[in-house]
């Protein structure tokens, strides 16, 4: 039964990778990254049950805290970019391409 959760975790992680690679909107890309982190959290919690230890739960909580800090910074960057360009498409940011 627990294995199913682990498979789901890996599938969610791969969906996150796909999202980062294929989407062009900055918001969606950051959401995909959050999906990857939360896939890892699901894995931690499922494994904690499998190993019958509390470690996994604690690790999941810590990852959540870090993910929140990262999201805060990401949103600040999104606002900054929107102020400069008025759009959130990653294709229009090309000053540094080279």
């Amino acid at each position, binding site marked *: 039964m627990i294995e199913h959760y682990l498979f789901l975790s890996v599938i969610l992680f791969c969906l996150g990778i796909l999202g980062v690679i294929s989407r062009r909107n900055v918001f969606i890309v950051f959401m995909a990254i959050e999906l990857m982190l939360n896939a*890892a959290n699901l894995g931690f919690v499922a494994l904690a049950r499998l190993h019958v230890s509390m470690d996994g739960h604690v690790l999941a909580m810590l990852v959540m805290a870090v993910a929140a800090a990262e999201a805060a910074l990401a949103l600040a960057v999104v606002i900054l970019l929107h102020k400069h360009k008025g759009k959130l498409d990653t294709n229009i940011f090309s000053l*540094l*391409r080279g």
Partner: protein
Amino acid sequence: MQDLMAILPLVATGAGAILLMLAAAFESFRKEGISIMGIGLFAFAFFVQLAVANSGSFAPYSGVLNGMLATSTFTKVAGLIILACGFFSAIAAQAYFTQNKGFVLEFYCLMLFAACGMLLLTMAAELITLFIALEIMSLAIYALVGYDRKSVRRSEAVLKYLMLGAFAGAFYIMGTVFIYAGAKSTSFRVITDVIATTGFLSNPPLVGGAFLILFAFLFKAAAFPFHAWVVDVYDGAPLPVTGFMATAVKTAVFAVLANFLMISSDLQAAWVDYLFYIAVFTMFAGNLIAIAQNNLKRMLAASGIVHSGYLIIALVAIQAKTFTGGAMLFYLAAYALATLGIFAALSYLAGEEERRVSFDDFKGLARVRPYSAACISIFLLSMAGIPPTAGFMGKFYIIASAFQAGHVSLAILGIVSSILSMWYYLRLIVLMYFREPEDRFEVAEMTLAPLGTIILAICVFAISFYPVVL
């Protein structure tokens, strides 16, 4: 008590950052005061680290705080390099902000927080502690890259860095899940025991986890398939921040990479062949990019990729049983001195709004400012690996360690790449000395940054006499 001693430098930087943040709230502390305080705090943390490193009262690789952290001579010296990088970057920043706008009082706090994360990173002996340290460092660095909110270039650089950095971070955390699945723990010590009893390659979750974690680290270290972001991000960041990123972040990442590979010799042996090719491709890809650049900052970023390649040679050559990390640390110190020196010189020579950044802008510098030109030449020669500079000794130790470990072809490729790299280092020296000046190189009066540059130039020679045990 011993645990407290071991984390004292961490406490010093962390508390210093908070203190500085509080001080920034007062009207009476303005730009100059905060700059001096920031530089002073880095110097203070450096001496604390030095005192801790010299106390030598605890055994190598002793666990601290119930095995969450581990200290050894390797981590202590890496910490010293990081804090020295912070000190000289802070000096460069002080010069930079006398000519550029966009200063925020929190700049030095962010630098100290980043240094705190890096120190924690070098000592981490548990995967989640390591993740948190990585994020403390990265979040502070993201903010430093993009803190000048008016500039579109900075915003683009921070977007690129943040997106790719968070992506790599997610891989890291997934790798931790796999290792937790395979070893039932995230502590390095337990993972070592598990590998010793079950073997590494016969435990698929561990292999997958180690792969994902190495992926994330190699991204942070700017190794071959993941090197493309470096040039853009380093170019987009303000000069002193670029110097800080290129040196301190690299030291922290390579220290943690070595610690991770040292979990077990089986683990290292499984990846040596891949690291071999990554080292070769990183060196040559970096050289190709660097040769094509006309912008000094971009050239230094690309040469940073090449130096990552040499450091990966050191990783290939380390042996778990007799690991001291001497060759790696010496190379990191030599590279940090030269890079910080160039960035300290650029921070006052570049002028307002980073006006002078391309190769042609430095034509004839030697006629107008002979001392600055001489210092820059010393740093460039050290990076190119010309004796008797520290860069030469660093390359010598790394290539000798590759020979010792039996990787003769890798050693030879390292030498070839080092010869290739002369092209773009010597180009700037030729421009500085054998062309007529077109610019008067007028810069604002300042004392700290030129002094720091000269000190760094002396250190380039001084540390090459330091004996290293391979």
